């Protein structure tokens, strides 16, 4: 499962796929403001915008979609059939991704919780289907970039 990191000859195709997903999330966010991962920008944090747009997606996607997904799948597959274990692993890492973001923004921020949960499920499924984390990194970057550009700061 750790091969999900999947940097191979198809990386351009993966990146385009991620771009499409990122744009779809932006459209979804415009239509449904509840799907949001951002909180109002704090001036002193604006200097960190590039870091938020570049390093957060890479580190978070590798952690949640490769390391954690693989670990959960490995543990769950001991107790349940393989397909069910995979489903559980995708949902499990999405829940932890949501908890991570909700905790970063304050647990009362429901928008962060639902948005991160939805993104976690989609990114987990895409990473598994394409056997590559590149799509979800690109989608995460696009979405974080958009959040930052509209005057919000993304904390993770």
């Amino acid at each position, binding site marked *: *499962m*750790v091969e999900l*990191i999947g940097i191979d000859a198809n990386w351009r195709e993966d990146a385009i796929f991620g771009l499409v997903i990122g744009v779809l999330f932006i459209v979804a966010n415009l239509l449904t403001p509840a799907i949001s991962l951002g909180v109002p920008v704090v001036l002193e944090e604006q200097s960190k915008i590039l870091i938020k747009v570049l*390093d*957060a997606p890479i*580190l*978070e996607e*590798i*952690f949640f979609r*490769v*390391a*954690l997904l*693989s*670990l959960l799948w*490995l*543990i769950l597959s*001991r107790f349940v059939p393989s397909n069910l274990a995979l489903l559980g692993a995708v949902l499990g890492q999405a829940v*932890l991704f949501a*908890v*991570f973001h909700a*905790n*970063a923004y*304050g647990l009362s921020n429901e928008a962060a919780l639902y948005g991160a949960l939805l993104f976690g499920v989609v990114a987990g499924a895409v990473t598994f289907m394409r056997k590559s984390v590149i799509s979800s990194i690109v989608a995460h970057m696009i979405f974080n970039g958009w959040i930052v550009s509209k005057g919000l700061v993304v*904390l*993770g």
Partner: protein
Amino acid sequence: MLDKSIGRVLLLVAVALIAVTFVFVNSESFRTAGFVYLGLAVSSVIIILSFGYIKNAVS
């Protein structure tokens, strides 16, 4: 047997690191110091590089 023990220790270290990162992610000073991403990065490296050992320990 030794492989299994190494795997268990590595799994325990990774889980502990993940737990600490998740608990302290809402701490402003912890975040500002970059410990959140450090925690994510180090636990990712442990899990990915020692996946063989962990797999051995879990199975």
